[in-house]
């Protein structure tokens, strides 16, 4: 196939030259599946759409031709703008529409009857579109399916949702080609497996481009011992902003972004135009920042992952990453944001947030120069997403379970899905899947005598659609200014998590959108606030996603410590490392270092596992469980990406016992099942599977007595139905994601019988910063009851009552 003359002329007229990978994508566009691996800003989208435009130019059609799926709504509308230029200038009759959560109902309805030639959508919206009875007529003409930023989509359950939907619509368009567009990843064959189960995907690798110029920001003040905000670097960052056109400053969490922005603003004596952008801000406010960015009116934007993916924001010439990047590939994608549309090298600076992170930042730099990427793959099948899929399939019309099962197992990841697990999911969708069978007449789905499954009541289809989606936000409340008349119809500033909102008492102040506001009242699920610029804020707790440091980076850090290769490191860091080596020992890769020391009448045990934050937290649970068994009276623990620090009333004389023994993992289930992590995971799983509803119009207004927490459901299931599907799905997810069990097992396996114990009189240079770390976890059980007692005593004494 050749590029039609009219199109190549137009490209020449624009003074463009097609990249090698764009030409190759075009040439092999007859392949049933293609995967393009190319860095940010290398014209991936054009490579994906060129064959579509050529085909529609040669064979005009009134039907759906190409389906484009991106992880971000904003990306879909960005692409729409970009496609409009060639279509207009080439005078093509090609209709392009987007369909996302923001699209009006009336337009969505029209699209189901008259779909455009090119439909731009998200995984969630595609799953919904699939659930309409019109699905066969919409998709029967489909020629191409383009999945953009596929590396990001397949990292989470959204990938499962998307490809389950694709497996379902495939039967209407057996010949449709599928194209994946991906940023640089470690192992393209994993993504190719999603696209082409038969292993015949044409993988096209682009020229990786110039090596980015990355360095670690030099500051007059060394990083602090603990903390995460990078505030110490503000003077130098201001200088960088002044000497660049537009700077993006990435943070790992929203709370850190807020605090940093607040302080940056206070230090901004020259009044440079700077703004903040993150996922908790109101859409309107985000739009304003985005528009100002495109117009080049901003000198800097403080942001989080909400700006991670490839939207074109104009003339960014510097990217600053605050805090250790945790994953090399994420750092590369962020850096790619600088010089997006130019061919020059990107420029980036990394700012370690504390001293522990300095080493990690240096390791990440080395990894980039050696072109090493981390790969942590989701391999577990999320049963909750299958449940949601089955419910949506049922919304489209009756189906035979065996057909859907056969569709699903065409996906590489699902080829080992057992029929038993599938049937359990189906049973959950039909009856709830409870051991105690009750009220058959109210099942959501019914199975007819010919074996097909359908909705009991077609009217519940809308309700099921409203609950679809796999991104699990913790419940958030809108934050609004209270207007003068006392009604909360003031403007919306953003959102905070419910748990944070209920912890506020009138008069409390917190940061949101870079402003300090005062909490006034909580009214009908809206947090009403007033501006309060002068007070010191109580800090907003946005949980955000906390990534764990990847295995690649952890291993590199360990190796560097072992080989004492630190000539390139700053002097303050070398001194710290040497101090640790002489005072205690340096951690090694084939042995676990454990330090014990007393402090303030408590006995501390510090375990250097280097397994990432989630795994180190799980290790904390494991250690405290063993301590309880050995009567060592654990009181609490705290973990960071490298270390777990536990403390108790009794001195741990033989720390080997904590990590060794045949039965170390036995009984962990029970210990974990009462843990807050499991309950939080259950909430997400139960929502995805459709057990708990969200987004129902009016439901939030019906008053709090009517609702009850998912914790109660979890406890009840555990008590009466411990083998229930959702408990199984919760365990699978918690073990892999939040709990990161695999890494703990690897660590224990690798270091079997290799434990180095150092007994100290006081904290070592490495363990001391942990004493300052936030996020201490108390051991539930008697500890929490004791804390409740003391809190109540202080409440009473505060009230100065004789009681």
């Amino acid at each position: 196939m050749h590029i039609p003359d009219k199109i190549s002329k137009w490209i020449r007229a624009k003074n463009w030259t097609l990249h090698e990978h764009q030409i190759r994508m075009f040439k092999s566009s007859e392949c049933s599946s293609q995967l393009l691996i190319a860095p940010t800003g290398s014209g991936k989208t054009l490579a994906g759409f060129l064959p579509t435009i050529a085909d529609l130019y040669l064979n005009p059609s009134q039907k759906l031709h190409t389906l484009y799926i991106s992880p971000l709504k904003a990306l879909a509308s960005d692409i729409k703008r970009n496609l409009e230029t060639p279509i207009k200038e080439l005078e093509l009759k090609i209709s392009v529409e987007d369909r996302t959560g923001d699209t009006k109902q009336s337009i969505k309805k029209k699209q189901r009857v008259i779909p455009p030639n090119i439909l731009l959508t998200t995984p969630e919206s595609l799953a919904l579109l699939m659930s309409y009875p019109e699905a066969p007529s919409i998709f029967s003409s489909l020629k191409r399916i383009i999945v953009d930023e596929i590396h990001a989509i397949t990292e989470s359950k959204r990938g499962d949702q998307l490809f389950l939907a694709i497996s379902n619509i495939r039967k209407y368009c057996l010949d449709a080609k599928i194209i994946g567009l991906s940023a640089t990843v470690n192992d393209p064959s994993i993504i190719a497996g999603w696209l082409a189960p038969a292993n015949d995907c044409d993988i096209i690798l682009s020229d990786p481009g110039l090596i980015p110029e990355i360095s670690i920001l030099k500051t007059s003040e060394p990083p602090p011992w603990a903390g995460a905000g990078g505030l110490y670097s503000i003077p130098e960052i201001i200088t960088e902003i002044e000497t660049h056109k537009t700077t993006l400053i990435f943070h790992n969490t929203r709370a850190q972004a807020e605090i940093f922005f607040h302080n940056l603003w206070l230090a901004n004596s020259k009044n440079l135009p700077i703004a903040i952008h993150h996922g908790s801000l109101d859409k309107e406010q985000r739009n304003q920042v985005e528009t100002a960015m495109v117009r080049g009116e901003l000198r800097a934007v403080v942001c989080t992952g909400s700006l991670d993916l490839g939207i074109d924001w104009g003339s960014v010439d510097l990217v600053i990453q605050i805090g250790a990047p945790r994953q090399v590939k994420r750092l590369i994608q962020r850096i790619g944001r600088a010089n997006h549309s130019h061919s020059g090298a990107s420029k980036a600076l990394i700012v370690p947030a504390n001293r522990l992170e300095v080493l990690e930042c240096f390791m990440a730099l080395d990894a980039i120069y050696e072109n090493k990427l981390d790969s942590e793959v989701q391999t577990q099948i999320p049963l909750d997403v299958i449940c949601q899929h089955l419910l949506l399939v049922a919304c489209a019309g009756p189906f035979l379970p065996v057909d859907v099962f056969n569709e699903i197992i065409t996906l590489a990841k699902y080829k080992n899905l057992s029929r038993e697990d599938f049937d359990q999911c189906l049973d959950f969708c039909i009856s709830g899947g409870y051991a105690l069978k009750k009220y058959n007449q109210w099942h959501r789905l019914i199975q007819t005598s010919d074996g097909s499954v359908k909705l009991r009541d077609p009217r519940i289809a809308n309700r099921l659609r409203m609950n679809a989606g796999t991104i699990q936000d913790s419940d958030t409340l809108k934050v609004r200014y209270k207007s003068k008349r006392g009604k909360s119809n003031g403007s919306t500033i953003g959102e905070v998590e419910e748990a944070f909102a209920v912890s506020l008492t009138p008069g409390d102040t917190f940061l949101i959108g870079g402003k300090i506001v005062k909490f006034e009242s909580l009214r009908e699920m809206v947090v009403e606030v007033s501006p309060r610029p002068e007070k010191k804020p109580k800090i907003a707790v946005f949980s955000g996603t906390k990534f764990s440091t990847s295995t690649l980076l952890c291993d590199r850090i360990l190796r560097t410590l072992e080989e004492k290769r630190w000539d390139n490191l700053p002097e303050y860091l070398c001194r710290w490392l040497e101090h640790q080596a002489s005072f205690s020992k340096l951690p090694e890769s084939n042995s676990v270092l454990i330090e014990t020391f007393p402090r303030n009448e408590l006995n501390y045990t510090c375990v250097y596992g280097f397994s990432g934050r989630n795994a180190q937290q799980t290790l904390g649970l494991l250690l405290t469980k063993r301590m309880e068994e050995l009567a060592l009276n654990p009181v609490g623990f705290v973990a960071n990406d490298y270390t777990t620090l536990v403390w108790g009333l009794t001195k741990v004389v033989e720390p080997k016992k904590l990590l060794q023994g045949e039965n170390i993992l036995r009984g962990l289930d029970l210990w974990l099942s009462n843990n807050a992590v499991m309950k939080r995971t259950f909430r997400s799983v139960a929502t995805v599977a459709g057990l708990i509803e969200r987004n129902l119009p009016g439901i939030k207004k019906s008053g709090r007595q009517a609702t009850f927490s998912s914790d109660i459901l979890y406890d009840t299931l555990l008590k009466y139905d411990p083998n229930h599907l959702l408990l199984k799905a919760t365990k699978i997810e918690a073990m892999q994601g939040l709990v990161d069990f695999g890494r703990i097992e690897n660590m224990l396996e690798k270091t079997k019988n290799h434990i180095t114990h150092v007994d100290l009189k006081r904290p070592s240079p490495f363990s001391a910063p942990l004493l300052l770390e936030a996020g201490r976890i108390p051991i539930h059980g008697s500890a929490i009851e004791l804390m409740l007692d003391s809190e109540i005593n202080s409440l009473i004494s505060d009230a100065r009552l004789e009681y």
Partner: protein
Amino acid sequence: MNSYDFYLSGEKLSALSSGGLYWSDKKILCVSDLHFGKTHRLNRTGAGALPPYENIDTLKRLQADICATNPSCVICLGDSFDDRIAEQSFNNAETHLLKILQKDRDWIWISGNHDPYPSLQFGESISSFSKSSITFRHIALKGEIGEISGHYHPKISINLSNAQITRACFIADQKRLIMPAYGTYTGGLSVRSDEIKVLFENDATVMLTGNKIRTIPYSSCF
């Protein structure tokens, strides 16, 4: 069982850590807002398929309180049944257990906003019941003295240094007592909410349910 004794209109009452109330002089056990059949109602409306275990769990906890106190009379303070056809949600084992609990003692169903109609197989309901100087009814009436009611499902959240604990609670002053909801699938309304605030004087006491009863002055909740 853990309990806390206090006086209302001169009568000594015991708040049980389970959420029940025992009046030992009259051998009366009182529980409120059982909401039997809540999943039955929610599942019927297409809300989903919630685990159908709230009836058996509520009954088993009630059984434990009855065994511990051996009352001659049990008062269910309204909203015992989540809706008109909630009784259909009972399976044989649950019906059997409730009938055993009812045997050989008086059983008073007070009607509530969810169950203003009589029960089909577990006995008649009445709108209120008085004994000595105490009146039992579902929704508190302003100006009443010596009244025990339910309806609001009071709960309280307490912030610890890194956890928030929420517990169902009793709240009482010299004039009235509001009971926590006893049913397993019942949420709660914060004691700080306006609806509850208007009913109580400043000297009221909040009694938290849980593994043991803890009390705090209502005034310290704000």
